[in-house]
């Protein structure tokens, strides 16, 4: 058995694979939250993106590459469409972001729109036609240890690295990024400096939705290339992504590390069983969720809240003419 079949390498490779949808969704949520809008609808947007992405691969015929790109566009648009509902309710009508987000997850989720969409088009019974396969771009896939972890992945994985870098540079180094952060920290100040708070929030909530849609499509186009009834396909990844943003202190780079950590946790139980490690699997399966709870408990202490850099206006609607 080569080193590339060893437990550690296998788990790390799967950590990257399963972490990728989390990374897309978390980056999207990060952008929305940095602009001050909390979107708890990630799970629903992911599921809808997964359904639409899969539907596009079924209804468009052609070579893999263009069909898959089109499927991603479809997934992104559907995620953004869902996010648009959230944006309208919370930014324009100033509804509670928590209630709207939860409603969105229920509406778009496993017992709502996605399930209806999947059932109406009978997606579950359609065999897979196009999917993202592993792409050995640099010819390094057989490199010991690093090969399977980093270079034997699909284009979605490579693209997520580029995206992480882009988001980091955008937020940290560009004028727009500065504006977004200002809108999330102190909307009144941003408004006074001539930044259009509403526009910035809309754009980032929509982009966040689009990325969540793509994150969902990672499941239906790459990890489990198929559609499955109910919410079993995404299976709570949206919630983990939301926790991940907090875990990452709203920083894209840490998001990447965190996504792979959570991805690894979800791959760990079956990997350990397969390699004969007898830790009770029920304990292992609960790990990502336990971690999520731990993260939320830790960061909800007042000390952490102040130090971690949560956008100060997160969750608060902005009203200009308040008297």
């Amino acid at each position, binding site marked *: 058995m080569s080193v590339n079949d060893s437990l550690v390498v296998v788990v790390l490779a799967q950590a990257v694979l399963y972490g990728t949808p989390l990374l897309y969704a978390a980056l999207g949520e990060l952008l929305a939250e940095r602009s001050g809008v909390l979107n708890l609808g990630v799970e629903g947007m992911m599921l809808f993106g997964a359904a639409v992405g899969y539907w596009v691969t079924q209804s468009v015929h052609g070579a893999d590459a263009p069909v898959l790109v089109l499927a991603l566009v479809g997934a992104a648009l559907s995620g953004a469409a869902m996010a648009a509902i959230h944006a309208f309710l919370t930014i324009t009508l100033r509804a509670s972001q928590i209630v709207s987000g939860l409603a969105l997850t229920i509406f778009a989720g496993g017992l709502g729109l996605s399930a209806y969409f999947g059932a109406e088009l009978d997606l579950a019974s359609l065999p897979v036609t196009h999917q993202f396969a592993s792409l050995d771009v640099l010819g390094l896939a057989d490199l010991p240890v690093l090969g399977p972890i980093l270079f034997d992945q699909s284009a979605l994985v490579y693209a997520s690295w580029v995206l992480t870098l882009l988001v980091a540079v955008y937020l940290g180094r560009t004028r727009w*990024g500065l504006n977004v*952060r200002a809108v999330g920290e102190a909307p009144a100040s941003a*408004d006074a400096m001539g930044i259009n708070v509403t526009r910035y929030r809309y754009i980032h909530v929509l982009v966040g939705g689009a990325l969540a849609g793509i994150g969902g499509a990672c499941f239906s186009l790459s990890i489990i290339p198929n559609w499955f009834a109910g919410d079993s396909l995404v299976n709570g990844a949206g919630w983990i992504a939301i926790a991940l943003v907090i875990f990452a202190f709203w920083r894209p780079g840490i998001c990447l590390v965190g996504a792979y950590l959570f991805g690894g946790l979800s791959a760990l139980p079956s990997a350990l069983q397969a390699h004969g490690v007898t830790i009770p699997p029920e304990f292992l399966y609960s790990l990502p969720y336990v971690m999520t709870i731990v993260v939320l408990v830790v960061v909800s202490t007042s000390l952490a809240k102040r130090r971690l850099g949560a956008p100060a206006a997160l969750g608060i609607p902005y009203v200009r003419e308040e008297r």
Partner: protein
Amino acid sequence: MVEVTKRFPGVLANDAVSFEAAPGEVHALLGENGAGKTTLSNILTGLYRPDEGQIELFGEAVHFHSPRDALDAGICMVHQHFRLVEPFTVAENVVLGDHRSEGKSFFVHSPAIERRVAELGEQYGLGVHPRSRIWQLSVGEQQRVEILKALYREARILIMDEPTAVLTPQEAEALFVTLRAMAEEGKTVIFISHKLHEVTAVADRVTVLRGGRTVETVMASDATQRSLAALMVGREVDLGRSPERKQKPSGDVVLELDGVRVPGDRGGEALKGVALVLRSGEIVAVAGVAGNGQRELAETISGMRASSAGTIRVGARELHPGDPRDAIKAGVAHIPEDRLGTGLAPSLSISRNAAFKTYRTAPISWGPFLAVKRMAELARSLIKRYDVKAPGPETPARNLSGGNLQKLMLGREFHGDPKVLIAAQPTRGLDVGAIETVHGFLRDAASNGVAVLLISEDLDEILALADRVVVMYEGAIVGELDAASATVEELGYLMAGGEAR
């Protein structure tokens, strides 16, 4: 500005207000709270749109649809509450939203911006480090950042809304120098204030507003504080020091603090071993720049905040730390800074609010039940005795104006025959008439033997009312002066952390 009118639901905030300001002048807008100054400035900066009238800039009518339009036209404003992004650096705040020069590029070139900010700071005496983060700066430094923002944008008109409220007298002096320097370069500074001496000190011309209307524009050199006050209030006002009170402090110690330490909200200590003695019948004022522990001091004595060390005694009784009921029982009355939040329940009626401190005992309560009629009676008697302008005892507290709220609060607190009265910023935001009433109540209380602790940022008020003044700086009492001989300069020196002479 020509005939500008702005209405809010139920309120005519600006009624055909007109004034003009020339390049190179400091133009003051003077008026009481509620005279429409802030609304007017918000219209000037594009935050609100006028319902009628228009703004003419250098002879041309302009229509601002958003703050950005106003910024582009060269109008910058320093709000009373700063519009800064706390986690950002000074340089980032300065460049935020700017879409010219360095701000135009897609990427933010920090070094170039920082260099420019440093240059401007040097030129105008506004020294702040460009890489400091806002939350690390003092309030005075934060104000400098606001002015730097305007300078960086090469604003032609700078509006300052009540800029000295957060400054020590010395800091205010420095600010005036900066503002004059800007005016000399041909910029226009619009200085909004209700403090007469500042207006006469810094302005070239003064436009007085009252009740949302322009009263008159006068040359500052031709005006006196007295004439301006008359214009502002609409009648002659007595601004002098209080007449000597009949009863001198008796000498019985009523309130005694010893080595009181209190942890702060943001880590560290808010009070660092405060010792203080109050005798019955005297008014002791606490002076200090906002945020030096005054609020924590008031809250600790009234039991809303628990101390970590030290003792608080009312008479011979030692208070349980962090127990408001114990403090009330011991005879501590508290008029908090935040009237509608801490002092009263805005959506409850006057009668309920009036009974807040006495509802646990007869005659207001009857076993577990409340005697609603007696509550209303109590409220009616308070309304009458303290001249609260309200339709009736069942009116929700939030419908009252600031002055009437304060009267209601005072009435409630006096009702329990307190031994100690803590009044935190009791006149902030009130009009001159209401201020006179509140001052009268405080003097009466002292005459009746109550020990009054007055916490105020208004040095004129402190000098007018107090027998003794203690100065707080960074959570400690750094000096104590006899009010009769104290001067504003001396107090300002202590407030800025100077040693007592």
